[in-house]
């Protein structure tokens, strides 16, 4: 490890902040995905497109209303409603069938939504103006407050979801349905509507993360792919359907990737340092290692 000894600790601190911020956004995307998988065994391949649509709707509402917060709320609610409609029309009829059918159905939805966005909004990326533009000094960097705000808001939304699941009447319904769909139904819980509600919540959370993340990246019709790929990785690493595990895995993977950005710069191949861009392989390495040694997920106490 001698060759890493001279990494300045302020860079490590900066990358820690970066890793946590990115991890929180990723956790917001992934928690919707894992919630949907946990309750109805549906791997939602359209999740990234709900994220993308959320960002677009946010951009449009921001232009008309002038308020980022109005855009955030309107986009979340709109996409949640769309999610509910998608679930009722496409997934509800497939309940209890081979999981492959739901994978194909959601994959189909994702293609339709992507191409709809391309047709409606065009290929030129759009931008969302961040609601706060202040910055603060983090060692030698000027660090935007907005990034910190995203992490805090993501944590707040996830925390709200947790409290709802833990204490809310419908939260108990959702957890009961996740554990035993048939017994939940025999207890009078309207399971088909619980499924619809959970899909709507997941869709709304994807949209919220799309709007929150919009200011940091250009909005385009294919933006969902990158995020949903990473979200799938953390959902598998954290244990499919395990909310806490997905959140922990999001932060772990994002931190490892952030540190790898520094570390690869210290690895010389043929006299040249490796490119920091190589750090993008880190989540995949974590995925492969997890699948090899603990396929039920890293953060699952006792495998089912």
């Amino acid at each position, binding site marked *: 490890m001698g060759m890493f000894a001279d990494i300045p600790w302020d860079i490590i601190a900066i990358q820690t902040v970066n890793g946590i911020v990115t991890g929180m956004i990723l956790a917001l995307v992934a928690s919707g995905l894992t919630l949907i998988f946990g309750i109805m065994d549906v791997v939602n391949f359209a999740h990234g497109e709900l994220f993308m649509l959320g960002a677009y709707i946010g951009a449009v509402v921001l232009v008309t209303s002038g308020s980022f917060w109005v855009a955030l709320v309107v986009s979340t609610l709109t996409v949640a409603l769309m999610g509910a409609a998608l679930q009722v029309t496409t997934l509800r009829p497939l309940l209890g069938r081979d999981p492959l059918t739901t994978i194909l159905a959601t994959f189909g939805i994702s293609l339709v939504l992507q191409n709809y966005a391309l047709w409606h909004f065009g290929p030129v990326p759009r931008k969302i103006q961040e609601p706060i533009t202040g910055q603060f000094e983090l060692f030698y960097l000027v660090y935007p407050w907005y990034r910190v705000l995203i992490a805090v808001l993501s944590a707040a939304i996830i925390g709200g979801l947790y409290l709802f699941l833990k204490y809310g*009447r419908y939260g*108990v*319904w959702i*957890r*009961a349905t996740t*554990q*035993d769909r*048939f*017994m*939940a*139904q*025999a*207890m*009078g*819980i*309207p*399971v*088909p509507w619980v499924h619809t509600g959970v899909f709507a919540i997941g869709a709304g959370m994807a949209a919220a993360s799309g709007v929150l993340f919009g200011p940091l990246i250009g909005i385009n019709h294919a933006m969902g792919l990158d995020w949903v790929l990473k979200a799938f990785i953390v959902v598998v690493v954290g244990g499919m359907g395990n909310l806490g595990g997905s959140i922990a895995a999001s932060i772990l993977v994002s931190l490892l990737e952030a540190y790898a950005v520094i570390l690869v710069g210290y690895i010389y191949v043929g006299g040249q340092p490796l490119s920091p861009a190589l750090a993008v392989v880190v989540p995949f390495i974590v995925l492969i290692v997890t699948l090899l040694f603990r396929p039920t997920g890293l953060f699952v106490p006792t495998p089912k």
Partner: protein
Amino acid sequence: MTSSAAPTETLLTVEDLHSFYGKSHILHGVSLSVGRGEVVGLLGRNGVGKSTTLKTIMGLVSPSQGKVLFEGKAITGMPAHKIARLGVAYVPEDRRIFKLLTVMENLRTGLDRQGVTEARKQELLDKLFEYFPRLAERRSQPGGTLSGGEQQMLAIGRAMMLEPKIILLDEPTEGLMPRMVSQISEIIEALHKEGVAILLVEQNVPLTLASSQRVYFMEKGVVRHHAVASELEVNDPIIHQYLGV
């Protein structure tokens, strides 16, 4: 059919029910009825379709043919949650406690219904905890950490939270210690006194005969025989014929 008809108004009627599990034909035309407030036993060897009969009534298995009437209305093919809300509760053979939910949350799945006031919820809980004080002690514990007997109490208690008109009770004493078995027979008695009807599937013949007013005997997916419980002895030839004990 050898014996008298239901003594009171009919609550549940099952007519010529046929059900499949995948490709295997389990029920070949089951017919039975349960009167309001009546405890009815359903006896038969393993695999004759007793559990499937209960699941089909509950709407968890859809019948390919036949009718289920509850309070005179057809409920055949209705989703289970609607059947539950009409007043049919189900206690499955394997109990199916929500293992990660606490005892209290398990009970809430039945309590959190439309139109149940907080006062009424408390009343129902108080009554339950009087029957099963152990559940009160363990109210904050996850259901999965309870013993088998406690899980059975919770499964019955959870069903009681629905204030059902009938409980479909599937092998409640299976695998329980004798002390627990007598507690189960006490609760059946108590529910009967409160006017709750019970359709009881059991292997324990003495308990079934003691708890029920009438019994049906099933064989190969149909009801073959029907008798008044008090007219049967535990070693009656009919019991030998259908249960082989």
